[in-house]
C-alpha cells in the first residue's frame, strides 16, 4: 500500500469539489439529514489513490455524527478548546468535531474494501478573522488535533459562500501545505465504486 506523505500535489476532480461545497452549504443552511448531528458544520473524509507523486481524490465521504459531546471525548475536546482555541462567543459545547468511532470504522472498512487510501479530513471555516479574511488555513487547535495523525487536514473557506476555496495541510501544519489542483479533466480512471 502506498503512503500519502511526500506527494507533490493533490488532484481534486471538479465533480467531487462540487460535492464538498454542497455538503458545506447544506449544513450552513440547516438542512440536516434524519440521522445527522444537527450542527451547522460540515466534516468529512477524503480518500483516493496515489499516482506517482500525485494523490488523486476519488471519494468524498461526509460524516454525519459528531461525538464531541459524548464522554470521554467531551472532556478531551473541552480541554483542548479551553487551552488552545481562540476565544469565541460560541459556547464550548458547540465548538469542535470528533468523529463517531463506529461511523469512522465503517468509513475505514469501506475504503479498505475499495482499496482507497485515506488522505484526511475536511472541515469548513465560516467567520473571517482580523488579519485572516479568508480563514483558509488551520487554526492552532486544528494543528494540535491533527498532530501525528499521518493525514491531511483540508480547510474549506466558506467565509464567502459564493466563492469557497480549499487548501491541504499535512497533519494540519500550516508549514506543510501541499498544492491542491481542482480539475475537470482527471488524468486517471476513477476506481470501481462499491456502494
Amino acid at each position, binding site marked *: 500500500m502506498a*503512503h500519502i506523505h511526500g506527494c507533490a500535489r493533490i488532484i481534486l476532480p471538479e465533480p467531487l469539489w462540487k460535492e464538498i461545497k454542497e455538503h458545506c452549504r447544506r449544513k450552513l443552511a440547516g438542512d440536516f439529514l434524519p440521522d445527522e448531528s444537527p450542527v451547522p458544520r460540515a466534516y468529512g*473524509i477524503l480518500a483516493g489513490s496515489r499516482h506517482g507523486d500525485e494523490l488523486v481524490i476519488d471519494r468524498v465521504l461526509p460524516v454525519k455524527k459528531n461525538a464531541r459531546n459524548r464522554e470521554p471525548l467531551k472532556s478531551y475536546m473541552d480541554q483542548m478548546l479551553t487551552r488552545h482555541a481562540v476565544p469565541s462567543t460560541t459556547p464550548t459545547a458547540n465548538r469542535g*468535531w*470528533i*468523529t463517531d468511532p463506529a461511523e469512522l470504522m465503517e468509513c475505514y472498512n469501506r475504503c*479498505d474494501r475499495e482499496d482507497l487510501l*485515506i488522505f484526511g479530513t475536511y472541515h469548513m471555516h465560516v467567520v473571517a478573522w482580523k488579519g485572516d479574511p479568508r480563514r483558509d488555513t488551520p487554526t492552532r487547535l*486544528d494543528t494540535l488535533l491533527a498532530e501525528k495523525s499521518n493525514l491531511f487536514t483540508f480547510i474549506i473557506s466558506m467565509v464567502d459562500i459564493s466563492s469557497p476555496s480549499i487548501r491541504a495541510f499535512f497533519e494540519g501544519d500550516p508549514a506543510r501545505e501541499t498544492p491542491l489542483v481542482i480539475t475537470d479533466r482527471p488524468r486517471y480512471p476513477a476506481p470501481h465504486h462499491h456502494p
Partner: protein
Amino acid sequence: MAKIIIPFPLRSHTDNQRAVTVDGDTLAAAMDSLFNRHPGLQSINRQPGLLSIFINGRAVERHPEQWQKIAVTADDEITLIIPIAGG
C-alpha cells in the same frame, strides 16, 4: 490468538499491514502482544480514553484496566479506532 485490524493512519507502524495476528486469550494480552511487535503503536494510548475498540464490530470497554476481563479467541477480529477531530 486474535486478529487486530490496524486503522489506515497507523499502518506506518506495521509496515503497512492492515491486520496483525497477535497472541493472548484476553484483550489485555492481545494488546500487549501488538505493542511488543509494533512498539510505535503504543502512541495510541497517549491520550487516555480516545482509543475505541470493537470486537467483531461491537464496541467494548475502552479503559485498559478492564481489558484483562475481556476474552478473545482466534475467531475474533479486533478493530482499533482513534477518532479524528477538528476545531
